[in-house]
């Protein structure tokens, strides 16, 4: 190429400048939230540009975790998210294995119904799901959330894992079958260990999806003790409409686990989004 070194340096500088502006605009609101959560309550609507609080305090966090019961909501969310994630990964990997490696009558029809489900927005189902939960006595309890979180996530994760299982060499399966290994052995000690990256992607999406879920929890949970974090934060804002420091201290508690999971596993995010043909 015939671009002079000076010109190339200028182009790179412009590139970085534009990227830095974008990064600033995308990250600034988070910093703003973080700094507000450390501001004493009287100063919350003071100078909005100062990111470093003059008089930083942990009062908001102390009140949120203590008097406002957020430790409880945090545990509720964690329990629901962990149990749901385990079930989602177990059931959808079994389904994906069955669909891609075993043959049985009706296989194509059942897989087709999974694909059809990918086009249905979950919000469309909220009314009949509510009636179903009422009839099954699953309203207003943390255990009641789990079957719905798992059932609505199975389609996407089965689809994602099926795509990955397809790429595993069939010869390995055949070799193990000749050695006398049954389907369960092949699933457990061949397919699953070889699919670690895809399983990691599923774990992340399943965990974040259930940790952040709002609409369904809002609809079925009534009692204070069974609230999950997103519900608690939204209602909390309704009660303390001017105490933004408290609201954002609670919000920080909710997003810190997400940020940790995201930054540690960010490679898998890209892999999952681009291989699974995407469903946001």
């Amino acid at each position, binding site marked *: *190429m015939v671009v002079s070194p000076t010109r190339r340096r200028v182009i*790179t500088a412009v*590139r*970085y400048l*534009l990227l830095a502006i*974008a*990064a600033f*605009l*995308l990250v600034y*609101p*988070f910093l703003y939230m973080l700094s*507000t959560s450390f501001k004493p309550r009287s100063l919350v*609507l003071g100078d*909005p*540009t100062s990111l470093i609080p003059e008089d930083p305090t942990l009062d908001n966090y102390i009140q949120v975790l203590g008097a406002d019961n957020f430790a409880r909501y945090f545990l509720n969310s964690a329990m629901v998210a962990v149990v749901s994630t385990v079930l989602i990964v177990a059931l959808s990997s*079994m*389904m994906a294995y069955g*669909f891609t490696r*075993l*043959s*049985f009558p009706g296989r194509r029809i*059942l897989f087709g119904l*999974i694909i059809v*489900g990918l*086009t*249905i*927005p979950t*919000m*469309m*189902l*909220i*009314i009949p799901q*509510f009636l*179903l939960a009422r009839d099954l006595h699953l309203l207003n309890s943390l255990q009641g959330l789990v*079957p*719905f979180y798992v*059932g609505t996530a*199975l*389609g996407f994760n*089965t689809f994602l894992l099926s795509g990955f299982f397809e790429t595993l060499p069939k010869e390995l399966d055949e070799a193990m079958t000749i050695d006398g290994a049954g*389907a369960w052995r092949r*699933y457990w000690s061949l397919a699953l260990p070889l699919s670690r990256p895809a399983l990691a992607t599923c774990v992340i999406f399943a965990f974040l999806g259930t940790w*952040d879920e*709002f*609409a369904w929890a809002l*609809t079925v949970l009534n009692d204070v003790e069974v609230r999950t974090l*997103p519900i608690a*934060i*939204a209602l909390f804002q309704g009660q303390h409409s001017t105490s*933004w420091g408290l*609201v954002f201290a609670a*919000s920080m508690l*909710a*997003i810190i686990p997400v*940020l940790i999971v*995201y930054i540690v596993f960010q490679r898998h995010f*890209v892999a999952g*989004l681009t291989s699974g*043909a995407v*469903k946001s």
Partner: protein
Amino acid sequence: MSTTTVLPPAASPSSIPRRRRAAAGAGRRAALTGYAFVLPGFSLYALVMLYPAVQTFLLSLRDWKITPGVDSPWVGLDNYIRAFSDPVFLNSLVNSVIYTVGTVPLQIAIGLGLAVLLDSKLPGRTAFRVLFYLPVVTSWVVVSLLFQYIFSSGDGLANLVVVDVFHLAQENVSWFQDRWTAFIAICALGVWKGVGWSMLIFLAALTAVPRELHEAAAIDGAGAWGRFRHVSLPSIRGALSVIVILLVIGGFNVFISVLLMTGGGPGNATQVPLTYMYDQAFTFLDFGYGSAISFSLTAFVLVVSAAQYWWTRRAMRS
């Protein structure tokens, strides 16, 4: 069955049915294993996804009475007739169009711009990618409250920028007191939260374009813009159509941000179909009407995305 053909001719006649039965038994066992893998998950999926999908349609044809034991009469298309003569519902559809038009093109333009900027061996590339994607992974609840605060009516950050820095308004704006300013705030959130997602998909598509194509174009004398137009753009068309379809679906299904930022108010000025459906179902307990709204929205969105799919397929072929 092929087992009969490989049998030695001397085999006793009685052994044939037995072997056949053994093969059928093995087939049945294989099928049972298949069902054992698939059915636990599939039955749960059918219960909470497929059954409710059918129920949404059936509920929409009834005047649903929430009290158990009370009859819910079938009313045909009454709920649909009511919806399409309900000014609030029609207005909510217009609002979802406003939201889609206000967010989708910007997300695509900015997302593509960022992807192009990141598409080279730049030190710090991963760090930028991680930062840009941060809003995407943060919960809708948290970011909706955050933007409510940024756009708060007093000395919020948005007012500071608009009034004191750029002098676009004489005095502080009460963003959520008016339909149009409220949608500026809601769309700003939608774009801010979404650009990282489209950036990532574009970036994956751009990375897959072979370097040699760019080099060949450069040797032929193409400038940066020419290479982008004639090399990059054609190779990311597939990604572009997927992004457009999914963003449009997402735009019409906007819910949490509107619910938390305006609640559909003032009056019903900022209702979108899902907030209105939610109101009808869980505030007024009108499940039949709510289901009709859900079903109409889903059908509408499916038709729009099928049309888009068909149109992009045709455009790509020609």
